């Protein structure tokens, strides 16, 4: 016998006696499980029953009657039994059935309403924080240690480089080393140790991974007319790292649960969670504010390093004009006229400094990476 109800009464345990309730034509039959004697059963006609709703959530059907051995109370939960009972019950019971059902509906409706309201307010608050100030993202990002960021970036970086033709030495590597050195000398307190790699590819691109891992493609170096122009892109990329833009993007795209996980304690899961959700570091697009920030701080960094900042602006402008070739850098760094204008205005506001030229000859650097003389059509 599999019990489907609990019966309460004076001689039963306080937790209720498990029993099997069956709906018959004229009433209910209640079978009690018993180890010692044969199964005891009790039949009650519908006419002597009263029904109501009860239990913790008012979702149980409470059936009461006066038995030979005293008051009996039955708690029914099984929906099949309740349905059968309702169908078989005579008219005088159906009124109390409707009342009980109405009470359950009311309780459920009320709690749904209240929870809906609470949920709505909560969601609105969270979304408000989320979209307006990105406060949660900032808090989350600030809690991620730099070592984590480096681990994250480095694994993606090594993975990427293993499929590429890396330039180990030569004038191009030396030139980028000099640029990096000039700029990082201006940020002595930075926790990042920048690593810049030149990759042989005609793609016009450069990118920085979280933690300070920078890749510059020879395609971009071929397009540049001076070392200062490449330095402009490099400075922009370094500042994406310094401002932790990649991390902000990751946290944002991983969603609120991750943010919560990071803010409230568990940082361990981030790398695993990224893998699980398939977040691609290379396809992360920066937001417009982040681009502006990287532009402006990039410009200031060039200025401090005494590298002519106008190279950055002319290169950005030239990249945005020409749409031929594979200008990959633009797909992750959307360029607009307004962006260049803003930089020009910013540059004009900065105090004038006399730039110090690089020690290398840019044309020789370009020649070393196999650049043909650019023929302007």
């Amino acid at each position, binding site marked *: 016998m599999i019990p489907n109800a609990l019966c309460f009464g004076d001689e039963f345990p306080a937790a*209720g006696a498990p029993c099997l309730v069956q709906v018959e034509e004229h009433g209910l039959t209640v079978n009690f499980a018993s180890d010692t004697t044969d199964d005891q059963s009790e039949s009650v006609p519908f006419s002597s029953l009263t029904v109501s709703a009860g239990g913790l959530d008012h979702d149980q059907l409470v059936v009461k009657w006066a038995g030979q051995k005293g008051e009996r109370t039955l708690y029914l939960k099984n929906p099949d039994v309740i349905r059968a009972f309702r169908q078989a019950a005579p008219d005088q019971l159906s009124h109390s059935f409707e009342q009980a059902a109405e009470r359950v509906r009311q309780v459920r409706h009320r709690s749904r309403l209240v929870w809906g309201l609470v949920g709505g307010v909560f969601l609105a608050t969270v979304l408000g924080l989320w979209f307006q100030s990105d406060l949660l993202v900032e808090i989350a990002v600030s809690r991620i240690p730099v070592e984590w960021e480096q681990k994250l970036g480095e694994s993606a970086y090594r993975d990427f480089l293993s499929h590429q033709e890396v330039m180990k030495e030569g004038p191009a590597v030396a030139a980028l080393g000099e640029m990096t050195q000039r700029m990082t000398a201006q940020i002595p307190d930075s926790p990042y140790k920048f690593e810049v790699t030149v990759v042989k590819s005609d793609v016009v691109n450069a990118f920085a991974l979280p933690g300070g891992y920078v890749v510059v493609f020879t395609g971009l170096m071929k397009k540049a007319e001076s070392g200062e122009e490449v330095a402009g892109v490099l400075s922009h990329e370094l500042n994406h790292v310094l401002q932790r833009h990649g991390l902000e993007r990751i946290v944002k795209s991983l969603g609120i649960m991750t943010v919560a996980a990071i803010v409230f304690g568990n940082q361990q899961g981030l790398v695993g969670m990224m893998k699980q959700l398939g977040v691609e570091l290379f396809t992360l697009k920066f937001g417009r504010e982040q681009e502006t920030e990287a532009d402006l701080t990039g410009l200031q960094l060039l200025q401090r390093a005494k590298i002519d900042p106008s190279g950055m602006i002319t290169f950005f402008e030239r990249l945005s004009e020409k749409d031929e070739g594979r200008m990959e850098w633009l797909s992750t760094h959307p360029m607009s006229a307004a962006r260049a204008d803003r930089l020009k205005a910013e540059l004009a506001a900065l105090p004038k400094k006399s730039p110090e030229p690089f020690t290398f000859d840019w044309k020789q650097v370009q020649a070393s990476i196999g650049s043909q003389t650019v023929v302007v059509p």
Partner: protein
Amino acid sequence: MKSEILYPGAFPMVRVDLAAGENIKAESGAMVACSPTIDIESKMEGGFLGALSRKFLTGEKFFFQTLRASRGPGEALLAPTVPGEIVILELDGVNEYMVQKDGFLAGADTIVIESKMQGLSRGLLGGEGFFILKISGKGTLVLNSFGAIHKIELKPDQEYIVDNSHLVAWSSTTSYNIEKATSGWVASFTSGEGFVCRFRGPGLVYIQSRNPGSFGAWIRQFIPVSE
């Protein structure tokens, strides 16, 4: 799952005998010692999101542990974090218990554990938080308490008033309302304002003889505050 309470009283342990291949659920961190035939798996009850939401919403441990007698029969010794009694209940498949989140110690694999949202006023005032565990199914359930466990038996429509921070578990055939404690009730140290639950039978209510919040507040007064 056969279980026996060792050292009943303030510092008990429970010994659980597992047949070969048998699993049980336990609160993570409850394991004290076990036979080498037993493997411990951290299982996320209700899937990843379920476990995650439980962690954030109930503050409960992220994982339940599953103890599995993979390499033959064996036994495990389990103990709760706080000093207090352990009680073993046999669920018969019809009875269901609501258990406040720290009350669960272990259970047979056949019992079902769900996180359940309470009504708003119960959640706000009840002291057990918005989420409690609803435990149903058939098999052994082991609960633990802070202090001694006392069982209150309620007949149909019989009422009883309990300070909410002393609640451990109660059957789902009971119902209750939250009421503001009238003066005379021990106001909790932390809130300064006590709430009580007016339970109505039929069913069982298990309460603990000590209040964790008040105990914490009492301890705190002896801890030197660094300026």
